[in-house]
């Protein structure tokens, strides 16, 4: 397994090095000069690109808990091969979010305050706890992959013993965390554009992250298969795409019903920038993928799966950016566009995330070959089995 195929052209290497150097300079300025000089954030737009990317990092990590629950809680072991990529994606997504929070928080050195200074009424309090707890859970879920490489058996067996409570905790923390990003905006009825504001925003956020998170796994598996010339586990992925289709339909219906009940249908026929962005988001992220995935042949076609999952992810990105930035623009009265420093730092963290993903995939058994898989269908139950599988 050689991962350099991802970065086949040294062109990309040069680009990443440039991005990292620029990003490091921006980070230095951000911490010495403060947020005012380095970002385009103002009193009217206190949240910008970084918070938007927090939503993306967490949302696209959603496969971590859905796949872990499918395999370990619902005991559908045929999905085992995608557990590791899903957990790794989630872990890297959450690390990205933590990186972004460090640059975005005005006083990052006080990040631990919510652990000792409680305000249980605050959604932000809930979010801080969820980030800390779920990152720990992800670390524990992924640790066996590292430990097996280092040939440490005792900790693997220990983790194996507590794996079910860990997975359950992970599902609960994720559920709370994904939905709480929607809850954040419940308190801004006058500010967030009514096309996106909804009293069931937490539910919208929760459902849409499941479709996007699963699509992320399909997308990654495709890219990975291309890069490593390993066989695509098409059957699993097309089953996964059926779930995506199902979730997208629920998401679409729920949005429609919500529009009817809160009397917002007329908004769909008002010409404005928001309306066009809303249509763009729904058509790219929901309607076209539903049409593509409704056809069984498309679900069994690598290319089509790739296109559909890419569209679901794009629609998801549009949705979160609309809630976070464009949906707030009209009420804030100013047009926000991120500064160079905001963009370079974001890209730097993205490059770090990609490099970390590449490094782990290259050095540890993440995307497993099918034969290896049959032998290691699940982590060995007992010490004897561990010996046997050796």
């Amino acid at each position: 397994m050689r991962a350099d195929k991802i970065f086949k052209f040294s062109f990309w290497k040069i680009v990443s090095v440039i991005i990292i150097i620029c990003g490091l300079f921006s980070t230095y300025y951000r911490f010495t000069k403060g947020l005012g000089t380095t970002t385009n954030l103002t009193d009217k737009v206190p949240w910008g690109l970084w918070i938007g990317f927090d939503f993306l990092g967490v949302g696209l990590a959603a496969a971590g808990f859905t796949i872990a629950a499918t395999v370990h809680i619902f005991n559908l072991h045929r999905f085992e091969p995608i557990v590791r990529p899903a957990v790794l994606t989630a872990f890297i997504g959450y690390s990205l979010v933590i990186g972004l929070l460090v640059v975005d928080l005005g006083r990052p050195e006080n990040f631990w305050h919510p652990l000792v200074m409680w305000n249980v009424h605050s959604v932000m309090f809930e979010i801080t706890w969820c980030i800390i707890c779920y990152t720990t859970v992800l670390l524990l879920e992924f640790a066996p992959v590292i430990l097996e490489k280092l040939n440490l058996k005792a900790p693997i067996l220990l983790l194996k013993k507590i794996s079910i409570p860990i997975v359950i905790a992970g599902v609960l923390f994720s559920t709370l965390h994904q939905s709480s990003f929607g809850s954040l905006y419940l308190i801004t009825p006058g500010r967030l554009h009514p096309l996106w504001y909804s009293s069931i925003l937490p539910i919208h956020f929760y459902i849409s992250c499941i479709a996007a998170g699963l699509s992320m796994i399909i997308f990654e598996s495709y890219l990975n298969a291309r890069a490593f010339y390993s066989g695509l586990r098409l059957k699993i992925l097309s089953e996964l795409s059926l779930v995506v289709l199902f979730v997208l339909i629920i998401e679409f219906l729920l949005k429609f019903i919500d529009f009817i009940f809160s009397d917002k249908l007329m908004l769909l026929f008002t010409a404005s920038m928001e309306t066009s962005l809303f249509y763009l988001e729904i058509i790219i992220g929901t309607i076209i993928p539903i049409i593509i995935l409704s056809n069984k042949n498309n679900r069994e076609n690598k290319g089509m799966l790739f296109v559909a999952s890419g569209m679901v992810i794009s629609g998801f990105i549009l949705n979160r950016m609309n809630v976070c930035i464009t949906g707030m623009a009209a009420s804030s009265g100013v047009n926000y566009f991120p500064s160079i420093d905001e963009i370079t730092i974001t890209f730097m963290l993205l490059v770090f995330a990609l490099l970390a993903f590449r490094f782990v995939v290259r050095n540890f058994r993440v995307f497993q070959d099918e034969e290896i898989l049959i032998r290691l269908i699940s982590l060995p139950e007992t010490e004897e089995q561990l010996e046997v599988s050796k």
Partner: protein
Amino acid sequence: MSKQKGILFDATLCIGCGACYEGCKQKNKLTQTNKDFLSDHLSDDTYTTIELYGDIYARKLCMHCDEPTCVSVCPVGAFSKSETGAVVYDGNKCIGCRYCMQACPHKVPRYKWETAKPVICKCNMCDERIKIGKIPACAEACPTEATLFGDLDDIIQVAKRRIKENKRNYYPHIYGLEEAGGSHVLILSPVPFEKLGYTPHLPKEPMPMLTMNAMDKIPPIIGVGGLFLGGMFWLTKRKNQIAREEAGKKKELQNHESR
């Protein structure tokens, strides 16, 4: 200091002299931000302003809500409601998430963006002065009765009486009495309030209820979710086990028969 305090601003009595603006700047030791105070806005160095709309002067400051949104959204409890009724802020607790700025229905909190150790800046109703029996700097400076400080109950009565006794001069509404669950700053005006830049159409119920309803569902989600997941794990495992056992039995049977 048993009774909660409040400030009444009456736009019909304001002469636009800027004494409150200057008084606030001096008391809070804020730097001068604008030669012409009428064109200044709330900022990290300006906790109150006077804005001119036509020929009416409108004062802007923190409304000191009864059930403040900032207090409810702050993850570390940096905001709190003082016994005086003022909404006060502790910069030492703040982590700088800026959720208060995003959530405040009156869009009041400002941020000290230009420093590496930023804090939130806003009016605190001169809480420390009230506690020693003094009145807020702005109310002390006001030469007319435009800015009136007193017990909240009293100033509500004053506001009601002013409207009642002089119906022609006032728009018949006390801004802040019910907006976002009510506040400790009340405003009277000769024209509808949205014309003076005050946020219109705020819900009457306190804003914190909007997120609290969602937060209340967390314990049931953890309880029911945990039980459900645990139950599903046990059920599906048992199902697989039974399926395996039966498959094993069948195999045995077949082996037996074939023998």
